[in-house]
């Protein structure tokens, strides 16, 4: 038997402050973005996935980057890079955004929180170095950039997340989706990347280790590794940098037009705005789609998408088994003409054509928290 996955070269890997906890829990560790991270715990990816959908899962995401940008010009400087309407954000509000390139491509995707004196940005582990160079270059000495050193970042996700976390922080229970609060030196936001209700927590290493232990003592919570993190976000139809987003894919092609503020679409004034406005007005030549297959072989990243006449019209950017649906699912890019929901295409897997249907995203409906006000 031979694994087709690449074996990583031996490099010195960084460890998060929760490394010893992962080891004690029997996690299988892998190299990810320069860190030694748990891919799964002894119960395995599928059980962890299901536990997150039905109860609450705790993820160590301390490998990600947390940056704070402060100063009078922070809004203006960041609006040049991120096409969100930052001016309309009130303190504690969060947005999903992208760092734009002049080409219209994306340097990284991130979460931005408006804070009292500026912004908190949470960025991908694999993009930390390029993001920080990019920020330093564009911000220069016009704003202050602080990088959190050795933070603990946790994601607590699932239908029981609010009930469980409110035992430690009662005020979290009615926090609206995509808002953040400060608790001493810790920041808690109602956000996540699984499609479930849940929270993300940023704190120093000492507090982070203590909170992790407290949360793991709750029988509703299980630790969840990167394997299930990926299958959960795939079911939720969310982009993963390096797969659905790259320096040569625009946010419009990726179906992220909603992440570009209304005012920003009219005014422009961000890197790549010409390309983005042109695509908003005239369309794109390719688009991100969802693909659904009957039970069978799994389309993996890079598999080609074919139409009945044999032409290759796209490729798979992420694929996997959906534990919730019980069959393979994938996301990919396809020529705009063929991005028609319910149409049939073929995906080439190990040289064989496998039928797939173009479907709308997400595969599994999101169940984000809706506060009473929003229900009206």
């Amino acid at each position, binding site marked *: *038997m*031979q*694994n*087709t*996955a690449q074996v990583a070269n031996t490099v010195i890997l960084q460890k998060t402050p929760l490394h010893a906890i992962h080891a004690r829990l029997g996690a299988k560790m892998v190299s990810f973005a320069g860190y030694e991270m748990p*891919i*799964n715990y002894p119960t*395995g*990816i*599928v059980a962890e996935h299901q536990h997150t959908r039905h109860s609450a899962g705790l993820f160590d995401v301390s490998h990600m980057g947390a940056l704070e940008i402060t100063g009078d010009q922070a809004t203006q400087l960041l609006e040049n890079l991120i096409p969100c309407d930052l001016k309309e954000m009130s303190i504690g509000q969060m947005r999903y955004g992208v760092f734009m390139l002049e080409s219209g491509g994306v340097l990284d995707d991130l979460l931005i929180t408006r804070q009292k004196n500026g912004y908190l940005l949470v960025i991908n582990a694999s993009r930390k170095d390029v993001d920080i160079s990019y920020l330093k270059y564009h911000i220069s000495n016009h704003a202050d950039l602080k990088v959190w050193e050795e933070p603990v970042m946790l994601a607590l996700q699932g239908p029981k997340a609010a009930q469980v976390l409110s035992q430690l922080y009662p005020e979290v229970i009615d926090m609206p989706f995509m808002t953040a609060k400060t608790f001493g030196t810790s920041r808690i936001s109602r956000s996540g990347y699984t499609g479930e209700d849940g929270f993300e927590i940023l704190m120093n290493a000492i507090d982070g280790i203590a909170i992790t232990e407290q949360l793991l003592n709750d029988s509703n919570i299980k630790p969840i590794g990167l*394997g299930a993190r990926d*299958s959960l976000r795939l079911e939720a139809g969310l982009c993963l940098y390096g797969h659905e987003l790259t320096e040569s894919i625009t946010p419009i092609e990726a179906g992220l037009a909603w992440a570009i503020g209304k005012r920003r679409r009219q005014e422009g004034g961000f890197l790549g705005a010409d390309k983005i406005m042109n695509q908003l007005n005239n369309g794109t030549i390719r688009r991100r789609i969802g693909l659904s297959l009957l*039970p*069978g*072989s*799994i389309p*993996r990243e890079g598999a080609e998408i074919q139409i009945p006449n044999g032409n290759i019209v796209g490729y798979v950017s992420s694929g*996997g*088994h959906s*534990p919730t649906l019980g069959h*393979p699912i994938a996301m990919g890019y396809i020529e705009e003409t063929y991005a028609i929901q319910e149409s049939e295409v073929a995906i080439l897997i*190990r040289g064989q054509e496998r039928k797939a249907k173009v479907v709308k995203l997400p595969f599994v409906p999101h169940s984000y928290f809706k506060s009473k006000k929003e229900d009206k």
Partner: protein
Amino acid sequence: MKYTDQHEWIRLEGDIGTVGITEYAAQQLGDVVFTELPSIGKILTKGAEAAVVESVKAASEIYAPVSGEVIEINAALGAQPELVNSDPFGAGWFFKLKVSNSTELNELMDESIYKAFTENH
């Protein structure tokens, strides 16, 4: 039972060899969600690609431990691929071969050597 360095096992009864993957391999793969088995009648040479096992994480090839003709496949894996994880040496078998050259088995590892082999990996 004999083992390959690619973590397949083969159990010989007469000239019929049953092939599967070891518990060590199943654990490394994680949750198995699909298997692609050879067609009956296919002639395999030792080391040839015989089947594919897909876990949540990745697809892996299964190679023929020895040469022979495929005479039976484990149809139960179609509906229950998880048998590869729950019973890798029993109900999770992949296929049966009519072994064409039983001396090839001598080139494979026995249990104690295989155990040492996995401990060094």
